[in-house]
């Protein structure tokens, strides 16, 4: 249960081609995250899998069965929407029971499953309230509850955490990951937040303008990004990319070094620059170093712990030799 295969899938809205031919394999029990900038087609891709949009051409298989023409209800998938899409006139209990009621399940079974879902998601205290009386996090859990009672082949999440505040988001991220560990059901998750992607995914699919830039585990993407787009997108703060003279020394058109792979020193090093803004987070300190002669943009550097360098100080930077990424003129990685 829960194996989804996309074969040469395309999608156009009128003349606009949103998704050029695309192949993707989602294995059973995997937590797959689609990540990319706004408008890259990741939500469209999810809606194609859900069946809420028709594919223009290509084929979608779910569990080895051709599902391309199946209506959403027949695909055995459950979806959690960005706006939660709870039914405002129904209580939490009725919201969660709705898919079961539509499946004409008998009353006792519905009650049992709704009770279980409510217990798992800590919703028992609010079970008779309406969605309007719940906080954002609780609504999110009701939406998840409505998805899990159906025991679907796979869960689809469409940016489910983007309406929550930062603290709640971290908590819900953990809950969804734990849910995945417990249920072992395939989950497909769309987000524009690469931190969510890195922390939750078994497999990340980086999308850019409808094209899959790279598929891999979070650490694969972090260690060996296949091109400059992935290099710049994965990692926080983002990788420093610079070209010309310095890159040429390494036989590349562009070279990239992550902020955490640059040594900072007040006395000596390969590159010299001036500290601009220093962000002291306590555990880490991020420096924006100007006037290095490497790139127009300041170079971001991470130093562990508290470092007493301040605005205007001169610093010396040294990249860790084995952590330098090299890219050719097309932006593709040089191994």
């Amino acid at each position, binding site marked *: 249960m829960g194996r989804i295969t996309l074969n040469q899938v395309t999608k156009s809205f009128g003349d606009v081609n949103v998704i050029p031919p695309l192949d993707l394999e989602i294995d059973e029990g995997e937590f797959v995250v689609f990540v990319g900038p706004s408008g890259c087609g990741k939500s469209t891709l999810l809606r194609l899998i*859900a069946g*809420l949009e028709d594919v223009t051409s290509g084929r979608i298989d779910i569990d080895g069965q051709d599902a391309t023409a199946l*209506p*959403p*209800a027949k695909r055995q*998938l*459950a*979806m959690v*929407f*960005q*706006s939660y*899409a*709870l*039914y*405002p*006139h*129904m209580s939490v209990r009725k919201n969660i029971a*709705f*898919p079961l009621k*539509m*499946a004409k399940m008998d009353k006792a079974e519905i009650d049992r499953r709704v009770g279980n879902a409510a217990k798992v998601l800590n919703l028992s205290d609010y079970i008779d309230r309406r969605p*309007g009386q719940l906080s954002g996090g609780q609504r999110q859990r009701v939406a998840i509850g*409505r998805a899990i009672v*159906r025991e679907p082949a796979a869960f689809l999440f469409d940016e489910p955490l983007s309406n929550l505040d930062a603290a709640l988001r971290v908590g819900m991220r953990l809950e969804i990951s734990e849910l995945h560990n417990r249920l072992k059901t395939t989950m497909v998750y769309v987000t524009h937040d690469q931190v969510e992607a890195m922390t939750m995914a078994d497999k990340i699919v980086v999308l850019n303008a409808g094209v899959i830039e790279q598929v891999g585990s979070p650490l694969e993407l972090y260690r060996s990004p296949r091109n400059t787009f992935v290099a710049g997108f994965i990692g926080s703060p983002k990788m420093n990319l610079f070209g010309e003279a310095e890159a040429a020394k390494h036989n590349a058109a562009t070279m990239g070094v992550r902020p955490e792979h640059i040594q900072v020193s007040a006395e000596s090093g390969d590159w010299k620059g001036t500290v601009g803004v220093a962000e002291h987070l306590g555990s880490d300190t991020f420096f924006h170093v100007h006037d290095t002669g490497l790139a127009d943009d300041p170079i971001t550097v991470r130093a562990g712990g508290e470092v007493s360098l301040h605005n205007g100080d001169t610093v010396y930077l040294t990249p860790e030799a084995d952590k330098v990424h090299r890219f050719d003129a097309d932006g593709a990685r040089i191994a």
Partner: protein
Amino acid sequence: MATQHSRTAARFMISPAVIVLLGWMLIPLGMTIYFSFLFYNLLQPGQESFAGWMNYRFFLTDPSFLDAIQNTLLLVGGVLVITSVGGILLALLLDQPIWGQGIVRILVIAPFFVMPTVSALVWKNMFMNPVNGLFAFFAKNLGFQPIDFFAHVPLASIIGIVSWQWLPFATLILLTAVQSLDSEQLEAAEMDGAGALNRFFYIILPHLARAITVVILIQTIFLLSIFAEILVTTNGGPGTATTNLTFLVYIQSLLQFDVGGGSAGGVIAIILANIVAIFLMRMIGKNLDI
């Protein structure tokens, strides 16, 4: 607006509007009540005298009174059912993306802009006339006996005409309500396995509840006082078949010149309208504060 001073000033400044509105309502109401206790006939001017409850007794025991109440309720109820059901269906239809959507919507709303007297006359003379009317033409072509609408089904004909006038209003309000429904909710219901009918009954209809309430309340207010359509088509007849309360008051005061009796009828109509309003609020008013 928080200090004592600004609150006093605010009250002072809204007082002209409040006084005008109160006068607008209370003076005619007071005069109606006053006239209802007088023998006041326009054929005998200057001979008004105190009548006590005579006018009320006269009006309530009028044999047409019960007919009028029944007709009023049938008219209001019939139009409400037709316009709300038809309005929901039309709203759902107009919400579909179709070619020429703007023009179609304007056409649907058009009947609302036609004056009641005009639309009633158009229906009477061009559609329902048993000799020249369009319906008679179709009936004859199909080999049926044309129906003389205003002679055989007078109340139903008037319900039809009034429904045609009010359908656009219901459609318009319900269409905006349909459009305000979050499409993700419908998609979620679709994923949850709800078919088109279940989506309608479990998602769309509850969402429309408030708009339907508004349609029913507003229409009831206007439908209780339907007059022009009856005057230009059936004149309350045949017999009392299409006489509603408004029309009965008109007969009393302007055809029989009995201002006192008419006023008593008016006061009774106000009381009945309030009873209907209380029942309506009880039944559907709870929808207004979800």
